[in-house]
């Protein structure tokens, strides 16, 4: 059966729909220029579970749960559910960890970098440039034979674990809903101020997340793969999706009067250009070595790829470290701890890139 979403117009449409929904999510309550940010939302979810205690970024974002569950449903419906495991999971954990550190020094994943640009935050240009450089470094390793090795087919139950964890978190959220003015209900923390307090209604976030998860699984939408394939193969397919995403978000922002151009005073952003750039170089490199942007890792987790799920858990650990030890940037800028963590991250990712090469198999 022909997969219409895997065509050129399919991927443009998918990107466009996600861009429109991202802008709308901001209208419906999500933070400015953060309709969707996979890194930030994983970080918020980490905080909601109390794994970090930064009170301003604690909310179990239903979009994240929806991404995984939507991809899970799509994969099952179209017989693409492929339980697999065993492609260097610990390495993927470490890459997930440092991708999160890089993203939180910049304050956004590639999705949010594009949304920040579409909202007029010119600091995003530094982040996107850094992202491209990080991906470019990653492609050099790929050309030199970098490879985390094959995954193996495994029990269906293995592929079910991560979607079930997401379903479990959703149940926990429904049993412990937010109570106005209260920073905790049962086991879940809820921000009462800051970005974590800004969110669309639960049901809207969940439905949008499910829809995006479904579409992205069908279309293979990936913000890292877009640039990687362009550099590595001169293959623009995924890049069309990225253009659709950014253009749609930009147009929607103009319509909704959410476009505010400038460098200073941008929401949940700082103006330290060098660290905006360097943070995303690290994130881009880590995504490339791991084979997907954070969104794509969630969608892969939904279709049974348990190595991608380990990457996501690495991101959770990265977020917990970032906020427990003051590594994440704030509107005031990057922190000295964050800069140290970036340097460590570069060393680790380069070591991974240099040491995990095999002779080209044919």
């Amino acid at each position, binding site marked *: 059966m022909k997969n219409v979403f895997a065509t050129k117009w399919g991927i443009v449409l998918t990107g466009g729909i996600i861009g429109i929904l991202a802008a709308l999510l901001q209208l419906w309550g999500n933070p400015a220029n953060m309709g969707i940010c996979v890194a930030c939302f994983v970080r918020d979810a980490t905080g909601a579970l109390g794994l970090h205690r930064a009170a301003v970024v604690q909310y179990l974002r239903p979009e994240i749960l929806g991404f995984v569950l939507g991809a899970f449903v799509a994969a099952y419906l179209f017989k693409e559910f492929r339980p697999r495991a065993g492609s260097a999971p610990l390495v993927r954990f470490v890459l997930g960890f440092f991708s999160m550190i890089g993203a939180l020094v910049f304050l956004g994943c590639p999705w949010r970098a594009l949304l920040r640009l579409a909202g007029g935050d010119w600091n995003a240009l530094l982040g996107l440039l850094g992202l491209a450089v990080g991906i470019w470094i990653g492609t050099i390793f790929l*050309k030199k034979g970098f*490879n985390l090795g094959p995954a193996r087919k495994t029990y269906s139950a293995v592929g079910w674990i991560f979607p079930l964890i997401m379903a479990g978190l959703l149940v926990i959220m429904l049993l412990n809903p937010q109570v106005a003015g209260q920073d905790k209900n049962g086991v879940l923390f809820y921000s009462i101020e800051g970005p974590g307090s800004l969110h669309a209604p639960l049901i809207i976030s969940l439905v949008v997340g499910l829809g995006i998860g479904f579409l992205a699984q069908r279309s293979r939408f990936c913000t890292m*793969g877009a640039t990687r394939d362009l550099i590595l*193969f001169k293959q623009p397919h995924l890049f069309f999706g990225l253009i659709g995403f950014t253009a749609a978000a930009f147009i929607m922002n103009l319509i909704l009067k959410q476009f505010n151009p400038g460098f200073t005073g941008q929401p949940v952003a700082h103006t330290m250009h060098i660290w905006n750039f360097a943070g995303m170089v690290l994130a881009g490199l880590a995504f490339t070595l791991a084979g997907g942007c954070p969104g794509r890792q969630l969608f892969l987790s939904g279709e049974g790829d348990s190595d991608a799920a380990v990457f996501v858990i690495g991101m959770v650990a990265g977020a917990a470290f970032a906020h427990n030890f003051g590594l994440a940037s704030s509107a005031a800028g990057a922190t000295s701890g964050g800069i140290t963590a970036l340097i460590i991250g570069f060393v680790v990712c380069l070591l991974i890139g240099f040491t995990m090469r095999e002779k080209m*198999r044919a």
Partner: protein
Amino acid sequence: MNQLVDARGLSCPQPVIMTLNKIKEVKEGEIVVLVDTETARENVSRAANSKGWTVADIQPEEEGHRLTLKKEG
């Protein structure tokens, strides 16, 4: 004798890199590529087409797909 690329278990971009390397090596004729995800099948087909190869045949296998790529001399 067919040229074989076994990319099963590998996630993209590896199957595409391996296929393109093989295309560079053999230049024309027939290449069989084994993949185990739909994403890899789509990506390998797209890459082959962009290099002027046609996907002559796709056979479902127990674990994935067997793609036959062709380019006339």
